[in-house]
């Protein structure tokens, strides 16, 4: 009998040791993030591309109309993770009391001022006609931050980057009053910029707006679109999601072809991401043209707040940061 008891005791000890070993292993290495665990929504384009590994995830969705299709969902707290322009997300948290925290910024600007090759002195000055898009929003605010109001008398607006691209390609556009205007400079964003450049030989990049922004901000990056995490999400889950996302972004910046390999065979990849995977890879190869990256918001408060100042958002509470 004693023999049996000692055998059972030895077996129990072994099991116990084995479990302890397992526990110490899990402590040393964080569990890999399960991509199906959080519901995520992102705007199409560069921010959505950061989630190239989520194409088959049911709980991941994108929207091509962030102001109407994403912002209301954030205010209503419908998603665990929301990706939005940093200013829009912060305004939802501050003004609409959305229960989210800013975790990280994943896109750092993809704006370029292009010259249509019809400016006699090839120098942006007050008599040149400039076409911007999204009056009062990010592109307009950044242009004015970089160039001030010197050119305001000759600035016209269209509603979307697609309209600005159409104007750059055709060489003219019809303004709000119905006049046909021939612009000298047009503000564009990637990836449509690549498309325009491939079609029009005389169009060329006059200024990299991100670089100008950085120059004016003493080296601070343009914290354009950020990841906002719902406060109710467990901190460990949120952190492992962020670590996984960071890894995904770093991988694709180092090897842009990852877009095509990850999205191969996914029929609706074009519509879901708002850009064809091959085009995304080509633009990223060209000096990370989509402006992808990953920077934790809390560690870059100065840069975040510098960007928010453009929208008169100041004195951001510490609790807003993840």
């Amino acid at each position, binding site marked *: 009998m004693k023999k049996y008891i000692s055998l059972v005791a030895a077996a129990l000890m072994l099991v116990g040791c084995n479990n302890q070993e397992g526990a110490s292993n899990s402590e040393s290495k964080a569990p890999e993030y399960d991509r199906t665990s959080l519901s995520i929504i992102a705007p199409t384009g560069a921010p959505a591309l950061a989630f190239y590994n989520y194409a088959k995830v049911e709980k991941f969705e994108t929207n091509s109309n*962030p102001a109407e299709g994403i912002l209301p969902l954030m205010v209503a707290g419908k998603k665990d993770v929301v990706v939005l322009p940093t200013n829009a997300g912060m305004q939802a948290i501050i003004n609409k009391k959305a229960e989210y925290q800013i975790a990280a910024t994943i896109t750092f600007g993809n704006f370029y001022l292009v010259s249509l090759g019809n400016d006699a002195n090839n120098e942006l000055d007050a008599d040149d006609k400039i076409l911007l898009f999204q009056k009062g929003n990010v592109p307009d605010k950044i242009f004015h931050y970089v160039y001030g109001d010197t050119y305001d008398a000759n600035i016209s607006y269209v509603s979307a980057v697609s309209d600005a691209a159409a104007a750059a390609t055709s060489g003219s556009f019809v303004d709000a009053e119905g006049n046909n205007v021939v612009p000298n400079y047009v503000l564009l964003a990637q990836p449509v910029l690549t498309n325009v450049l491939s079609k029009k030989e005389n169009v060329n990049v006059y200024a990299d707006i991100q670089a100008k922004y950085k120059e004016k901000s003493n080296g601070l990056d343009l914290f354009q679109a950020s990841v906002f995490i719902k406060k109710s999400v467990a901190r460990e889950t949120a952190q492992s999601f962020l670590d996984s996302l960071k890894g995904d972004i770093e991988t694709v910046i180092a090897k842009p072809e990852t877009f095509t390999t990850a999205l191969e065979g996914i029929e609706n990849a074009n519509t879901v991401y708002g850009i064809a995977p091959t085009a995304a890879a080509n633009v990223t190869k060209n000096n990370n043209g989509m402006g992808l990256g990953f920077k934790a918001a809390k560690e870059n408060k100065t840069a975040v707040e510098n960007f928010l100042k453009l929208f008169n958002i100041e004195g951001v509470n510490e609790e807003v940061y993840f």
Partner: protein
Amino acid sequence: MKKFISNKYTLFALGTLFVIALWFILSACFDTNNGIFPSPIATFQEFGVLLTKPYSYQCLGYTFLRMIIGFAISFALALIVGIPAGNHSQVHTFLKPLMTTIKSIPTVALVFLFVVMVAPKNAPIFVVVIVCFPILYEAVAGGIRKVDQQVDYAAQIDGAGYFQRVLFIKLPLSIPYILVGIASSFSLSFKLEIMAEVITGFTKNGLGSVIHFVRQEDPTNLTGVFAYSLFAIIFMLLISLLETAIKQKFNKQTN
């Protein structure tokens, strides 16, 4: 010759040729940039490419499925509300303010409410419901109200109960009106579904999503947008032909 010209198939073919000729003229006038107003030739070429892609059919299928769901909900609601409203003028009067509100409210104002309530994926279904329901309701209620009272009295004298008269006399007699309501709202609901997919920014399978993407991808060339629209038009044309065939069969049976 006169017979040939007045033949309905000849007229239909001539009408189609007129549309294509008009399209050619408009394209020649406005297509300053080879794509902003694509010609029928460029559009049909692109359309040919779309026909070879299984994804086009997938998008069409999903859009049609969502539209059918929205239409079915509208029709069910129209029957539930329209039958009592058609039989009792008090119910009809009571529902008038509600129906006027639903009919007059700008759809776009509700789209964003639906986005929050039922997610962008399902919002287009409810857009279809909000537009089609009042049309179908009027068709059901109006059809029942137009049934000759004498027929109702005769059935009553013959001993038919209230539900028997409604279900077996009034409702079948109002079918022509209901069919008119269905015909006028069916094509409209397909257009609405596509429009709502674009407005809500929904990006998974759907004709609206793919039209939006094609426009975003190359804003200077609308050939893709026109080709997908042609895809939708031809599909609806086939549906309307089917609808006409069913109507003709029904008319033959009732005569």
